[in-house]
């Protein structure tokens, strides 16, 4: 099982718009990511990085080609299957996207709620996860009273608490200063290695390129080898 690639993309094409406005966003993408790898996806804005990430995250439906996540084909998959795949993926967004009305630990526990855990276990695991991102003392704070770096660390805790097999991150450091950006990335790398999960990270932040096992560059919707 673990020898299979986590992500296997073959001849993926994607276009936006209709008729004369039709514009290709991705052209002939072939990508393979193995279990435990940390892959960085870089490229100028508009090169299709985010589109590829949303396709892999089963957030957008596949138009052409073949894309397998955890060995499951996404092409023509039904809603239920897509939701099942999504719940095994941890997402870290550019903006933290925390729920404002919930405290830090409650935000973390939101992704546990999808799987059948008791309320007590959810709280315990959420607090343990917040502890490992160094925010145990902020567990009862609301997102509005946390700094940008702290919010992003809560978001990482939320993505990791389920022990996902794959983490998709889109410019997680874009809104952070260099110091907290570095901290956040080191944290993500350390925790992912501990849990043995795979990371695909979109970034054009040069300061964090060293954390990846492999860097994949994109331009105009194509992968540059």
């Amino acid at each position, binding site marked *: 099982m673990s020898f299979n690639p986590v992500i296997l993309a073959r001849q993926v094409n994607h276009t936006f718009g209709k008729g004369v406005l039709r514009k290709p966003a991705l052209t002939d993408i072939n990508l393979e990511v193995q279990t435990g790898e940390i892959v960085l996806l870089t490229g100028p804005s508009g090169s299709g990085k985010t589109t590829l*990430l*949303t396709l892999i995250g089963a957030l957008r439906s596949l138009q052409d080609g073949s894309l397998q996540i955890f060995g499951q084909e996404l092409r023509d998959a039904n809603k239920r299957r897509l939701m099942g795949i999504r*719940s095994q993926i941890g997402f870290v*967004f550019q903006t933290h*996207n925390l*729920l404002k009305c919930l405290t830090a630990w409650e935000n973390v526990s*939101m992704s546990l709620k999808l799987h059948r855990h008791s309320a007590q276990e959810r709280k315990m695991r959420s607090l343990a996860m917040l502890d490992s991102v160094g925010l145990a003392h902020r567990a009862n704070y609301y997102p509005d009273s946390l700094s940008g770096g702290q919010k992003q660390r809560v978001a990482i805790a939320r993505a990791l608490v389920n022990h996902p097999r794959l983490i998709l991150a889109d410019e997680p450091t874009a809104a952070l200063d260099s110091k907290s950006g570095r901290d956040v990335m080191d944290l993500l790398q350390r925790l992912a290695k501990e849990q043995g999960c795979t990371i695909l990270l979109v970034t054009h932040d040069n300061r964090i390129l060293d954390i990846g096992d492999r860097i994949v560059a994109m331009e105009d919707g194509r992968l540059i080898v």
Partner: protein
Amino acid sequence: MSDTNYARWFGDSALQQVSVGIVTLSPSANLEAVKAGITARVPGVQVYTHEELIAKELAFQQSHPTGPIFGFGTAMGFVVGVVIVYQVLYADVTDHLAEYATLKAMGYSDVALLSVIVQEATILAILGFVPGYGVSLVMYRFLAALTRLELVMQPDVAIAVFVLTLLMCIISAAIAANKLHLADPADVF
């Protein structure tokens, strides 16, 4: 209706005439026999039991314009309620669209998100009903003092109104949930 109005409607002499009388029976009396006896012996008088009088009064209200107008007012109140609650829920869903999209991206189903909106609608229904019930009680007392008619809040009426309120909010929730389709999880990146 005041006595002046009554005199205006039915003539000044109406105030001098007895038009309604109450006969109170001892518990052991045979209701039907007494009724038949009065009808037979006193000409020009209609006799009703308590239940029959209530039925006659309700039928009179239905046949008069006042009754249907009040009924229609209630129906319009329901429709306006649906629209207002819909507006409240719609604004709330719009405000939190990004959060709904995030939950969708995490793997939450449409049904789970719909249940959040229905919960919200139920809370609105309960929070709306409680002060409404209180205001109604005060109004009942005020009108009873004003008209000297007996107005009593009946539990079955209160329950029926609560059920309708709940129904109203859930209809609004169902309409507002349409907006959820706009929460595209691909947009949160």
